[in-house]
């Protein structure tokens, strides 16, 4: 636009209009703030992780709180995780059946379901479901405690909040994720079999037999135990977001949302890296 509001057409001889200095500066400031925020977040996360690690390996150990968290994170997430696993198993069975039949590999259907559920879908679905349920729960709970000074009160009572609140929750996530994954896998396989047997009857024994034919523990243990890393990510990010919250109700909401979004994102990114590591190390 010209000064008088007319649109000017840029030609070879027309000097390229320069953006106003204010816009250039603000764009630079914005990018710089974005980078600063990014690095600050990782820096603070590293310091937080170090504090939690130090607290976790030194006594006194908070066994009672750990058991409470194992129950809260494990038993309470079990129905949701099993349901999600079952749904994935059923969908996978119906979808895969269609394509396998087209390529004349229908007999490999149990194997495809077993491998897909146990190696990838079960762990990832468990990670994402727990990110949603537990990530939001921990993020909101700790954020609420932070804004109402309850975490300060714990610290003022000479109790290390990293040990009592963060270490116990993170450890519970690490321990429970593989177990929840086994539950999701079992539900997925069961529903996968059910969906298949409804289309073409096959006994569960036969389904399992064919599915696991030629499989070794290396095929199934690493994908299951990689979810311990997901647990670490979910617990760490949710505790970090919760315990660094500022502001009132808005801060609590933001902490819960950020916990879920970041935990889910990092679980998916970690999965890419872990799958590559498993392929390199175990195959």
């Amino acid at each position, binding site marked *: 636009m010209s000064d008088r509001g007319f649109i000017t057409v840029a030609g070879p001889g027309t000097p390229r209009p320069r953006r106003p200095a204010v816009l250039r500066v603000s764009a630079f400031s914005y990018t710089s703030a974005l980078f600063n925020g990014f690095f600050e977040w990782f820096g603070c996360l590293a310091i937080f992780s170090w*504090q939690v690690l130090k*607290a976790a390996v*030194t006594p*006194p150990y908070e066994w009672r709180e750990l058991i409470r968290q194992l129950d809260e994170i494990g038993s309470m997430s079990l129905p949701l995780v099993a349901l999600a696993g079952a749904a994935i198993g059923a969908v996978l069975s119906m979808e895969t059946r269609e394509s396998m039949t087209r390529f004349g590999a229908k007999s490999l259907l149990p194997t495809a379901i077993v491998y897909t559920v146990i190696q990838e879908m079960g762990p990832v679905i468990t990670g994402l479901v727990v990110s949603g349920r537990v990530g939001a729960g921990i993020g909101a709970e700790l954020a*609420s*405690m932070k804004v*109402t*000074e*309850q975490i*300060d*009160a*714990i*610290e*003022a*009572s*000479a*109790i*290390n909040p*990293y040990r009592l609140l963060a270490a116990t929750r993170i450890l519970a996530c690490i321990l429970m994720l593989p177990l929840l994954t086994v539950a999701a896998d079992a539900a997925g396989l069961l529903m996968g079999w059910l969906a298949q047997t409804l289309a073409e009857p096959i006994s569960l024994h036969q389904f399992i037999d064919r599915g696991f034919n030629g499989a070794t523990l290396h095929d199934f243990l690493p994908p299951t135990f990689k979810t311990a890393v997901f647990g670490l990510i979910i617990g760490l990010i949710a505790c970090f977001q919760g315990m660094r919250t500022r502001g009132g109700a808005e801060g609590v909401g933001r902490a819960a949302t950020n916990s879920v979004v970041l935990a889910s994102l990092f679980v998916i990114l970690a999965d890419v890296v872990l799958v590559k590591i498993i392929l390199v190390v175990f195959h």
Partner: protein
Amino acid sequence: MATSYDISMNETAPEQDSHAPVVAVENLRKSFGSQNVLNGISISVSRGETLAVLGRSGTGKSVLLRLIIGLEQPDSGSIRINDREIAGLDLDGMGEVRKKMGFLFQHAALYDSLTVQENVAFPLEHHRKEMSRAERDGRVKQLLAEVGMEGNLQKMPSDISGGMQKRVGLARALALEPEILLLDEPTAGLDPISSSEIDDLILKLQSEHQMASIVVTHDLHSARTIANRLALLNEGNVVIEGKFEDLQQSDIEFVKEFLKSS
């Protein structure tokens, strides 16, 4: 100086029985970003003595208490507890010092998922592991009886009033038998009767436990009732420190203005 106050200075407050300061703060500075909150203040409190820190909102009174208990780190200056420098101590080092301190938060900061009884038992469960369950329960009941809350053991914090929450917070602060009691606005937000009850309670606990106490408040009436000495803060500095009479006789304009408007 003539004032309209008809209240008397706390005559029943315990006399200082030792001149060695339990809490000694020297040249303490703290800023948040570009905002200077404390500009090099120095105060000290001895055993059995209560110091009231007064001032307008936002003058760094609560920050001072948070610095003393280590919830904030100072930019510079010294904080000595029983002659031990605590500025710069890590979380575990600070934990040892905090066992000797009780802190009443402005909004009580009770754990909202625990009952009144569990709130008071919380520090005991973590630091008095040698206590049997029965002993711990007995101690909790005794503490709650001291603050007049023995009939509310199983209530949740959300089910009791603000004044009652402060009483429970006070019982929790006293659980580990602290040498130092830090009270952040103990009467803020309470009606005059509840405020007076809390003041009486603090006086009673002071005479029974002989702690070194720092009370942050902007309630001059309450400060005059419970404290031996008063320190008036303005813009991060101690404007005047002494007995209420010293404040009354002061020629400093801010002191006059503060007393007049309180």
